[in-house]
């Protein structure tokens, strides 16, 4: 088991080419364990810094250089680490072992280079190297793979001496596919049609139907909202309302139409700069206007303008580059090759704009109606006219400076817009957002296809290849399947950046179709499921928890788009001192809309979503945590929105004409879990029903509501399995 764990990690570090030693990859980790605690940074002992080549190879006062490049035998550093006397380094703790000393010697004999690029001029770190298209590896069980994805996965499983899990049963797959691709469980009609479909390609047809459904677009858009940190309020103290839902609807449209992701990228970042930009193109740039706005007194507008630009850059860094750019705002990145200058050169692309709006009547799904924002009336009693925040290039170019310590009060040298030195250069010489978007979608830029392929893999399989979705740097997790990741990234670009086709590729794989139940050997060997030798079992996300309950109860509204809505919420959530805005519950079907349409107030998001780990949407969030808490139990048991779903499910069971109790229960159980209960499960629920009838002999609905409550609280009901 230990051997296996070790072999899982080794794959990445040894994947770089050749035998050449790279300081950051090979040498630094050894020094970090034994030496750097004392010999690094400005306070280094004996003024010897092993993290700085000049210090390492230069004489310090009377002391000779610690390292003589190309002459390990003549290097005092080697002498000291080899010593068995009092002068041994490190003075305390274990000595370096023979292999570590040999590595240092070889590195010094090769010239003691600190260069991060290998002989081919490629960065040593996997994420910054050009994307290869590895050939799918050979496998023993040649009949298992359904497509090339599976060959990469199976090769690893076989190398570990394990077997993939068997294929899940059809009902489980139907439910898993529906949850992954639409965020809703299948209706019983959809489920039964699929189960009864005798055709060879029934599975693929089912997948295609899901991908073509409006629910797919809503579900994919929802994942985009966290990244964009979409909200219906400005944030900060006053947290007043804004009207960004037309942008949200435009995102739904884009996923519906399967706009290629490179084109989608250009719209989101620079739609307004496209030739003959339409109102819709301009609305797309609302992506960058989901930044917070501080309306508090005394704020320096320039400070918050700079913060908004920094937030946009942080978002783009996380979403397309998988990089923690913010670290390079105040100083060169401590771990990754981004310099502070790189940061402000990227900043400069985004620093040429001024705020603009598009009247909300242009909202794509609003049917041309001009919206007024409900809520507190303006001072003169008139309702405020809403408009969507968008980007606009300023008439006068703005000079960007490197800010000392990241503070806008300390501008230093001026910089031009440009991309980081260690990544491929843009083809054009533009200096605006359009140029940045072009670089992000240039196939030579290795980061975006890798980052996007990984994120989509995570959406489809509930377990991304790189666990740190927004950190592909040296401190992020390495990919579990580096070759598969590269193959997928190249495939995504080759197939025209189509999100639908890419997801289809993933969910039609044998890897996807595995059961989530693993044998004991696999569980023992791979508790974290790094090998993908079973399906990942996870609780669905906050909005999906809601959508599942309403859908199981048969009361979910399928109305699409439009202004955000106000489903039932407990009193007191919105009590704010600087804002007397009120939550006025929506009427009619707007109470029962999908979670993504719920009004999102940054300082007080919808309580049940918060309990199920939804973020505040103040900054870009690539990964939500998945907690499992008693407060979640209380939501599912007692939140009026969920109680309403329980009552509805009870009605669905009761309204079955001429049905037995058992048949009614089976119906409810299938609505909740997409499967038929076994005999023990059925008996448990029949017993419960009987006890409730005994306790409440006059009630007809009440016993069924208790049963429905159990069904909607099952672990299985809120789990993708």
């Amino acid at each position, binding site marked *: 088991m230990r051997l296996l764990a070790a072999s899982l990690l080794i794959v990445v570090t040894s994947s770089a080419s050749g035998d050449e030693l790279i300081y950051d990859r090979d040498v630094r980790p050894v020094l970090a364990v034994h030496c750097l605690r004392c010999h690094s940074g400005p306070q280094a002992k004996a003024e010897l810094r092993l993290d700085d080549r000049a210090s390492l190879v230069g004489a310090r006062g009377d002391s000779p250089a610690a390292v003589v490049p190309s002459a390990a035998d003549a290097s005092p550093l080697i002498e000291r680490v080899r010593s068995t006397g009092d002068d041994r380094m490190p003075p305390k703790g274990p000595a370096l072992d023979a292999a570590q000393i040999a590595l240092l010697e070889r590195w010094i004999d090769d010239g003691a280079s600190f260069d991060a690029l290998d002989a081919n001029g490629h960065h040593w770190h996997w994420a910054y190297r050009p994307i290869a298209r590895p050939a799918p590896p050979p496998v023993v069980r040649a009949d298992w793979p359904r497509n090339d994805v599976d060959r990469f996965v199976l090769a690893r499983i076989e190398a570990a001496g394990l077997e993939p899990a068997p294929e899940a049963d059809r009902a489980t797959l139907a439910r898993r596919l529906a949850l992954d691709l639409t965020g809703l469980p299948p209706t019983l009609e959809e489920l039964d049609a699929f189960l009864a479909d005798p055709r060879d390609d029934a599975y693929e047809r089912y997948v295609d139907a899901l991908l073509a459904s409006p629910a797919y677009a809503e579900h994919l858009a929802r994942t985009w909202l966290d990244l964009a940190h979409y909200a219906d309020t400005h944030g900060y*103290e006053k*947290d007043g309302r804004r009207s960004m839902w037309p942008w949200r609807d435009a995102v739904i449209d884009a996923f519906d139409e399967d706009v290629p992701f490179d084109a989608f990228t250009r719209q989101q970042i620079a739609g307004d700069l496209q030739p003959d930009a339409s109102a819709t193109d301009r609305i797309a740039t609302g992506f960058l206007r989901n930044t917070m706005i*501080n309306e*508090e*007194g*005394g704020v*320096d507008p320039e400070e918050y303008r700079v913060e908004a630009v920094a937030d946009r850059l942080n978002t783009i860094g996380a979403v397309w580059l998988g990089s923690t750019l913010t670290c390079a705002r105040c100083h060169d990145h*401590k*771990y990754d090759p981004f310099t502070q200058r790189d940061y402000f050169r990227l900043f400069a692309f985004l620093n040429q704009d001024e705020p603009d709006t598009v009247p909300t009547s242009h909202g794509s799904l609003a049917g041309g109606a001009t919206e007024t924002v409900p809520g507190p009336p303006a001072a003169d009693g008139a309702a405020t006219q809403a408009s969507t925040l968008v980007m606009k290039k300023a008439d006068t170019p703005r000079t960007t400076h490197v800010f000392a310590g990241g503070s806008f009060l300390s501008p230093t040298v001026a910089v031009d817009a440009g991309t980081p030195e260690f990544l491929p250069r843009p083809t054009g010489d533009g200096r605006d957002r359009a140029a940045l978007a072009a670089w992000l979608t240039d196939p030579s830029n290795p980061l975006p296809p890798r980052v996007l392929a990984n994120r989509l893999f995570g959406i489809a399989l509930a377990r991304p290849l790189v666990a*740190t979705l927004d*950190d592909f740097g040296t*401190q*992020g997790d390495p990919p579990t399947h580096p070759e598969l990741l590269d193959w997928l990234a190249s495939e995504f670009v080759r197939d025209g950046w189509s999100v639908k086709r890419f997801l289809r590729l993933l969910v039609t794989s044998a890897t996807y179709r595995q059961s989530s*139940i693993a044998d004991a050997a696999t*569980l023992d060997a791979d*508790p974290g499921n790094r090998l993908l030798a079973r399906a990942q*079992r996870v*609780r669905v996300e906050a909005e999906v928890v809601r959508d599942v309950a309403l859908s199981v109860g048969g009361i979910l509204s399928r109305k699409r788009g439009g202004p955000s809505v106000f489903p039932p919420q*407990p009193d*007191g959530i919105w*009590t*704010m*001192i600087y804002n007397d805005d009120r939550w006025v519950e929506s009427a009619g079907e707007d109470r029962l809309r999908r979670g993504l349409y719920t009004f999102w107030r*940054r*300082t*007080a998001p919808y309580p049940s979503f*918060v309990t199920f780990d939804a973020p*505040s949407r*103040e*900054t870009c969030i690539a990964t939500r*945590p998945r*907690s*499992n*808490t*008693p407060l*979640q*139990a*209380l*939501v599912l*048991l*007692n*939140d009026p929105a969920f109680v309403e779903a329980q009552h509805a499910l009870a009605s669905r069971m009761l309204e079955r004409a001429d049905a037995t109790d058992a048949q009614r229960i089976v119906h409810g159980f299938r609505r909740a879990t997409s499967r038929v209960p076994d005999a*023990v*499960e059925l008996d*448990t*629920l029949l017993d*419960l029903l009987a*006890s*409730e009838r005994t*306790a*409440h002999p006059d009630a007809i609905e*009440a016993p069924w*509501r*208790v049963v429905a409550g*159990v069904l909607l*609280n*099952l*672990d299985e009901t809120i*789990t993708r*399995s």
Partner: protein
Amino acid sequence: MRDELEPRRCTRREWLRDCGIGLGSIALASLDAKDALAAGAGSARPPHFRARAKSVIHLFMNGGPSQIDLFDPKPMLVERNRQPIPESFTNGERFAFIKGTPKLLGSPFAFARHGRSGAEISELLPHTASIADELAIVRSVKTDQFNHAPAELFMNTGFARIGRPSLGSWLSYGIGSANADLPAFVVLLSGGGQPSGGYSCWGSGFLPTEHQGVVFRSGRDPVLFVNDPPDVARDSRRRGLDALRALNRRRLDTVRDPEIATRIAAYEMAFRMQTSAPELADLSTEPAAVLEEYGATPGEASFANNCVLARRMIERGVRFVQLYHRGWDSHGTGTHDDLLTSLRERCAQTDRACAALVRDLKRRGLLDETLVVWGGEFGRTPMNEERDGSQFLGRDHHPHAFTMWFAGGGVKRGITIGETDELGYFVVRDPVHVHDLHATLLHLLGLEHTRLTYRSQGRDFRLTDVHGEVFAPLLA
């Protein structure tokens, strides 16, 4: 150093595996033993070294109380009342609202010395004055932030923007809770809603969400959705949960996913919280004399009630109770936010209960192991704000110097620490930056601030970032 914290960092799933608890045994064993596990935060963990305090009550006077009118008297301001402030103080300064050259404002309130320590406390706080010998009054706190939301976030998380874990969630992560029926970190609100920084003030940032503060609300539902719907009888609920547990257990046997075991335990704790939380929140069982001392009235949403609740939580093992009371933002634009009316009201709403809380904890032998902290997110200017020529007395936000007080576990008693200049503008002795404050609070709870770390986005984060020194003058 990492190794020490490794067990805390590992996922529950790994914990189950590494501790050799077979999956079968989870399904069969009594689930009660695992309730604490399910709650995560609900199990106590040893600190780094001997703790001086076991729990904290943070009385967060939200809005920024005026130190100059409460704890840091400045005779020179009175002498130079309404004279322009020397420019040397205000060069390059930014204010939230003050424009032009501001004028000094002497406190309109009288100060007297109290207790054996002779602490100088304003006439607005007679009850606090009566416990002067229990207090360590620190006049030299400073922050980096001068607007509410960033300053609140900074005071809570050590970072002026959202996304970092708050002090309470760090404590929950670091030492856990001593009560499996209640969250480790509870937040109570009074004075009109939540702070400007919103729920990020008690958020868990990148820490697991089980560590975030849980808001106990005033009134019928102390925890959101803690009460059963009106048409659900308690015995029905129990039978329903029994069936739910049986079904979930059956699924666990088949699937062997430890998350199911966690969920089963979470439902059991939820069921117990349905009893423990309302019981906790029910002040009608408190003796009349106690309620009287605090000025509390059962059923009301008030700071006084929250102080009684805080004591009840500490008794039950809650690790960190944070009370927010809003309304200290004394700009002087009207009677709703001036010194003469509004500040006096705010003091009247809180003074008695603060003192009663400290006395009550002491009487019950809890003060030695409970740290009580009083203060806001920043202080107020020595100058009159006079926004738009307002005739009401008021002061703008002031980050450079303000006062907080401490009482109980591990801090000195009957002492005033730190000093500001003669106008009260800057700290001149014993400065305590917010990062130092955090290092000190963690120290008192037995945690070394440089060792309490959590890995996120590729680096180890801590509450004090790369700053913070334990403030020795405060320690007993």
